[in-house]
């Protein structure tokens, strides 16, 4: 069993800003702790410091037990990294070093087959055995069978780029959870996993006896798995010793307490300053008061030197104002609609004010259905139409706008587009401020974080005057607070909402569900359905 002890860690960014200051917390043996915070608050930096990738400017990290780290990029590997390389990289340092030595000795042997290189190769193999390399290979075989359904020898040279994001994640998670490391740092382990994959991850994290610190935005995962929540905010970190269910109340109470402590400090400070001034005046006329004045000065100096308590962290203010408007009773009608090759013909009627979750198998045509309703060209048969005064507004996954990549939010708002009039810089900045995007106003869209891009797209929906929102995985890149702001905005929206989502927490806010089955059948459900398997097509 292992633990992590973070003690008074400080980290300064290259531009001089202090990102983390006096960060201290402990993740005890066998704990499963979530690390949460806004985008850019310093979660990944803190994980890198704990992992040893970054040296803190001050403070120290103590831990016992081997450390296994799953980086955020696993799931989006597109280079020539092989399954074997990934498994080696996730192994303990001794196994990694022994593997590198065997590789190097093999290479030398291929170039120069003499006695010296043969003995060096034999020595490297002996080191491999001593480091537990053969045992690791047995584990890797179990891992690849569990994650990919094939033995290690049959997939070790396979490139990760040929695996789906979910398969890459599953492979890494199986390796870490079955490996010898006692402390695991997992940076967004649930990204790219479908709902059955997320459920699998929850079960594994619940049953593991390892000590786990993980970053996630998935509220369902946080609620089921985390037995404590470490929050990075306002340059510091604090720990809520309970689960996610009681986290919001604990955070609000902490913020109130900090504000109260600060208010009291300010009041006491002002009182001491006033008293010192009064005594200064009295000291001019009385030597006795002069002594008391100097004592008062010392007391004030000590009070100021001790410093004020930490300020209440600034609240992330995301105010989404999705207005909408009254439309005809029937907002969307489809009869015998079939998106060519994707599903069997189906009928659906969606009414003004409905909140419809579009769920189902990957590859079953959910996103295509939304694009069709948004007016894009999608091959289909059958009829569909929108009701009176229905104006669709489409939120696509963030990579779906290549034409935006080099333009800035202010530029995109200023120019407008059909159905969305342009606005001047002042109005654009005011709107961006409400979405917490002031700092990103003049940076290219491609350089914004996933969460910032998602918030900007919601702002465009607000400005377009849409009365039918078509949302394709809108919470995928949103941090917890932004996702909650979106839910509030949708609740207040006067119109109809259709959303494709794998976010179980978000899906609970919908009242009807259209499910695209793996067998091509489209059906309605009153409850969310997340266990449709991936559509299998010949490739």
């Amino acid at each position, binding site marked *: 069993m292992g633990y992590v002890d973070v003690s008074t860690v400080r980290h300064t960014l290259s531009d001089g800003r202090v990102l983390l200051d006096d960060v201290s917390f402990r993740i005890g043996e066998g704990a499963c702790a979530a690390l949460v915070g806004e985008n850019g608050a310093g979660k990944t930096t803190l994980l890198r410091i704990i992992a040893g990738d970054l040296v803190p400017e001050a403070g120290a990290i103590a831990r016992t037990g081997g450390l296994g780290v799953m980086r955020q990029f696993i799931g989006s590997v597109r280079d020539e990294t092989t399954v074997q390389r990934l498994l080696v990289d996730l192994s303990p340092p001794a196994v990694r070093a022994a593997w590198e030595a065997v590789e190097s000795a093999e290479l030398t042997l291929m170039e120069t087959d*003499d*006695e010296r290189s*043969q*003995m060096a190769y034999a020595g490297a193999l*002996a080191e491999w055995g001593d480091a537990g390399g*053969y045992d690791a290979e047995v584990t890797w075989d179990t891992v690849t069978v569990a994650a990919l359904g094939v033995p290690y020898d049959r997939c070790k040279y396979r490139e990760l780029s040929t695996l789906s994001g979910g398969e890459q994640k599953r492979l890494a998670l199986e390796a870490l959870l079955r490996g010898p490391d006692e402390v695991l740092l997992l940076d967004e382990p649930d990204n790219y996993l479908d709902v059955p994959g997320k459920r699998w991850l929850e079960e594994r994290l619940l049953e593991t006896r390892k000590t786990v610190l993980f970053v996630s935005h998935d509220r369902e995962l946080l609620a089921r798995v985390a037995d404590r929540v470490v929050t990075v905010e306002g340059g510091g970190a604090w720990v809520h010793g309970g689960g996610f269910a009681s986290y919001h109340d604990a955070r609000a109470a902490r913020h109130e307490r900090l504000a109260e402590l600060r208010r009291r400090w300010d009041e006491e400070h002002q009182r001491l300053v006033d008293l010192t001034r009064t005594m200064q005046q009295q000291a001019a006329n009385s030597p006795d008061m002069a002594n008391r004045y100097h004592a008062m000065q010392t007391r004030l100096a000590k009070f100021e030197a001790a410093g004020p308590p930490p300020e209440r962290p600034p609240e992330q203010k995301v105010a989404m104002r999705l207005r909408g408007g009254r439309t005809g009773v029937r907002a969307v009608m489809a009869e015998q609609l079939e998106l060519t090759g994707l599903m069997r013909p189906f009928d659906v009627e969606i009414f003004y004010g409905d909140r419809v979750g579009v769920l189902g198998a990957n590859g079953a045509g959910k996103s295509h259905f939304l694009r069709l309703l948004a007016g894009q060209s999608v091959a289909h048969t059958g009829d569909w139409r929108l009701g009176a005064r229905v104006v669709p507004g489409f939120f696509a996954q963030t990579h779906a706008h290549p034409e935006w990549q080099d333009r800035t939010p202010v530029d995109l708002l200023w120019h407008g587009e059909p159905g969305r009039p342009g606005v001047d810089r002042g109005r654009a900045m005011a709107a961006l401020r409400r979405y917490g995007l002031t700092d990103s106003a003049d940076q290219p869209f491609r350089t914004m974080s996933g969460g910032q891009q998602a918030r900007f797209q919601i702002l465009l929906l607000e400005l377009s005057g849409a009365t039918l929102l078509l949302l394709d995985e809108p919470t995928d890149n949103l941090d917890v607070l932004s996702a909650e702001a979106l839910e509030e905005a949708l609740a207040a929206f006067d119109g109809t909402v259709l959303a494709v989502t794998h976010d179980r927490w978000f899906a609970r806010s919908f009242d009807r569900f259209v499910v695209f089955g793996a067998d091509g059948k489209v059906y309605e459900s009153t409850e969310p359905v997340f266990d449709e398997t991936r559509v299998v097509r010949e490739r």
Partner: protein
Amino acid sequence: MTLVVPPDSGPAADDPADEAVSAAVGRLSGEFSGRVGPQLVVRVVRDCRRELGGSPVGALPELVERLARYRLDRQIG
């Protein structure tokens, strides 16, 4: 004359590694037949086996045979 590595030269005779070493002796004797005497093959293989004693058992047959072949080549070279 025997081609079998004597049991007192290392681990027990039923050790899978040493069975494989015996097989290496057989193969190398055939390969170097007429150029090197069988007793020399046995001696070279036995020396190689001893020097590679710390190697993983699974890799030992290949390592021993490869090193012994290299040394026998040098003998006749």
